[in-house]
């Protein structure tokens, strides 16, 4: 099979082969990549790959309620007879969507404010931005997210808003540390001397050199956002039933423990596996950039 020219160009330009080599040296990174890809695939294809797609919603099937895991219901059924396997796979949709939305909302403001604060290190701009971000970091993230979600009305959308509101300062800090370290590098000073505008220096010179830690954090954060989101819905401040959200399912199953353990345990393990996958993947991505920095 011929490889299209454009693909080859990209491979050469971004040195994909070497990056892949660094990434793939650890087999754990590959495991992470596989878990991440499989969970994204399952989320996208949920209506086609699940045995009972209708069970994602509010369907009752009382004749099969509380079935333990068996051949027709691999993960068993819940209190109104819905297939736990199907609901768990649909749960991936909500978890991954939450991660995608939250990260899309927090990465741009966090990175931009961090870059600006880092570039103007030591001035009042730095002080204002970093002190504001300190305020959000002054409380454990979960507590602040829970409180914001509670003040708004509990729903999946508001949970995403709550998580986003307390998440951006971490990107500000990360980017600030990277950017303020680069601030006095010769290539930045050279651009300044040549009269390049601050905007251009920030985005053209400093940003590309901060991408490593930022990309690593984004990957790791997919797992952490999913974790926080599931904790919110476990408490009852996130997605509301009958949404097949993993945290909600675990909480609901808790009412039928220990006899119908499968209602809780399978979604719970599914959350852990997704988080594990993105953690391993994030470590692999870190390997790519750490080596490059040497």
């Amino acid at each position, binding site marked *: 099979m011929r490889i299209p020219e454009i693909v080859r160009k990209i491979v050469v330009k971004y040195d994909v082969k070497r990056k892949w080599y660094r990434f793939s040296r650890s087999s*754990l990174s590959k495991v992470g990549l596989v878990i991440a890809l499989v969970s994204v695939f399952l989320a996208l294809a949920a209506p086609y790959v699940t045995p009972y797609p209708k069970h994602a919603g509010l369907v009752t099937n009382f004749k099969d309620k509380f079935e333990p895991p068996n051949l027709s219901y691999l993960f068993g059924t819940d209190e109104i007879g819905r297939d736990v396997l199907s609901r768990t796979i649909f749960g991936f949709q909500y978890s991954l969507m939450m991660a995608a939305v939250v990260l899309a909302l927090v990465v741009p403001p966090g990175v931009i404010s961090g870059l600006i604060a880092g570039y103007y290190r030591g001035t009042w701009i730095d002080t204002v931005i970093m*002190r*504001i971000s*300190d*305020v*959000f*970091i*002054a*409380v*454990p*993230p*979960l*507590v*602040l997210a*829970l*409180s*914001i*979600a*509670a*003040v708004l009305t509990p729903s999946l959308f508001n949970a995403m808003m709550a998580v986003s509101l307390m998440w951006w300062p971490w990107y500000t800090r990360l980017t600030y540390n990277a950017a303020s370290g680069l601030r006095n590098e010769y290539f930045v000073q050279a651009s300044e001397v040549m009269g390049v505008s601050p905007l251009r220096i920030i985005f053209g010179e400093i940003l590309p050199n901060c991408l490593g830690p930022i990309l690593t954090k984004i990957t790791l954060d997919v*797992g952490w956002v999913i*974790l926080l989101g*599931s*904790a919110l819905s*476990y*408490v*009852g*401040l996130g997605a509301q039933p009958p949404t097949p959200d993993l945290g909600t399912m*675990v909480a609901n199953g*808790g009412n039928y*423990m*220990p006899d119908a*353990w499968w209602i*809780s*345990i399978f979604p*719970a*393990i599914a*959350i*852990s*596996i997704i*988080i*594990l996958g993105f*953690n*391993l993947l994030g470590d692999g991505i870190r390997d790519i950039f750490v080596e490059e920095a040497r």
Partner: protein
Amino acid sequence: MRLSIYVLKRTGYIVFSLIGLSILVFSLARVLPGDPARMAAGPRASEEVVEQIRKQLRFDRPLYEQYFYWVNDLLHGDLGYSLVTRRSITADVLEYLPTSLELIFLAAVFEVAGALILGVIAGRYSYKWPDNIVRVFSYVGISIPVFVMAILFQLLFTWNLKLFPTSGMLSQGLERPSVVTGMVTLDSLIAGRIDVFGNVLWHMVLPAMALCLGGMLQDARIIRSGMVENKDKDYISMATSQGLPERQVMFKYLLKPSLIPAVTVMGLDIAALMANAFLVEMVFNWPGFSKLGITLMLNKDLNGIVALVLVLGVIYAVANVVVDIIVAYLDPRIRLMERGE
């Protein structure tokens, strides 16, 4: 820079963040749609009563004035009145916070002890099987959300193995000793009830373990990598070549500098313990601060939520200052760095 100046500077930062936090949570509770006076009065109260409450709670004043009244009350130890528990939030906090703190304290003890033991073993036998086991477990441990961990523990240790009580704080038939400190473990010791003390401790083991396991494994990994990194340094080779016993080299020379990054992370872990206690207390039905918190949150008690965030913010801030001081004490380089050199 002298340690005392460093401490003052850190404290200054924290006070600043707490003021910011108070403004943040205050505005959070005020920007919401809805009439707080109406909510306080209840849906069936007449207009006059609502007006009266509005005056009484100062909702008719401009926002900045309300803020200053509120802060003034805070500084006098008055966190406001809860519409859910129908009493002063200060009283609620004083009742529920100590039981949470004792759980968190036990978890912290487990975490530090476990991390030290596992980290030193993994560092001593790096790249051998004990190290690999700790590594695999730490990946898995970090990835399991704490409420999942709690549920798994409950399923395994209480329902299947029946080693620990399922939930709650005391077995049936035992009475909570009279409140002195609010911490049941201490109170039972003061009352001289060893049986109650043991019973509470027995109820605490599982939640505390579920609470700290993830952080413990993570800290163990950090101690381990610090040790592996420092192992190749010249001063260790010198100590070894002088014929010092391995035990002495390990604990006296290798461990101390390797602990510094771990102590920093443990500071963050305090935050994790405080937050995760919310979930663990829910699973194990532990009558603590988090139970109060969840009740307030699910019932949308604004005064309560605001007070809760602030109380946790203060505890967290104090804990962080303490950790910073310990780190600065352990590592003089940090003190020097703050001076900007």
